[in-house]
């Protein structure tokens, strides 16, 4: 399952990524940061359209594997309330060569931001809150 409500345990997530065919492992981890556009962020709440989000992540992985010669791609996105400093998303790509691993990893995280039905709500230190918006979504979907 590529979506979880549990904390992402990075050591476990990155275990067993290497095999004898792969000379490269590229990864991306998105953490909750403590600020956004001048405001102090306390925590983030992530919500998803679960069956479609799972399907879209699988589709992104399939498309990445079709485009680059990569051996394996793992994705884990957390939903629910996530505190500053915790991981919200983790991606790891293994391949024979680094260029394919970097490219596929970048493709997957950008795709998650634009195409996977997941939304974040920011909770600020002043007790206000706001749903986030990715302004790139429309141009990619349409």
């Amino acid at each position, binding site marked *: 399952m590529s979506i979880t409500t549990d904390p992402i345990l990075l050591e476990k997530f990155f275990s067993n990524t290497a095999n004898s065919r792969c000379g490269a492992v590229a990864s991306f981890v*998105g953490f909750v940061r403590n600020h956004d556009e001048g405001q102090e962020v306390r925590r983030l709440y992530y919500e998803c*359209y679960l069956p479609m989000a799972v399907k879209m992540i699988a589709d992104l992985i399939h498309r990445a594997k079709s485009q680059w010669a990569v051996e394996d791609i793992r994705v884990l996105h957390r939903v629910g309330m996530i505190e500053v400093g915790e991981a919200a*998303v983790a991606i790891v790509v293994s391949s024979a060569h680094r260029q394919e691993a970097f490219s596929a990893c970048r493709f997957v995280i950008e795709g998650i931001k634009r195409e*996977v*039905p997941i939304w974040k709500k920011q909770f600020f230190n002043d007790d206000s809150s706001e749903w986030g*918006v990715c302004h790139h*979504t*429309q141009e990619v*979907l349409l």
Partner: protein
Amino acid sequence: MKIQVLFFAELREMFGASHSLVVPDKIKAGEVTDYFSHDSKTYFLKKQSLVYAINETFEMPDTELKEGDCLAIMMPMSGG
């Protein structure tokens, strides 16, 4: 015909998570927002760049719905 409409995130907070609607045949995805024109939140809905999915697949606003379809009306994604 009957359809199901789903909202998530900010739209869920405003309109509720799930609605069963009876709508005219061949209604387009982008026309379903008219059924949520009961109060001042309509303006909010109208001004957004909404994204539509029918049965978990992205579709354009002018895509016609069929009996039993599940339409998700969504704000632009912000995951990652």
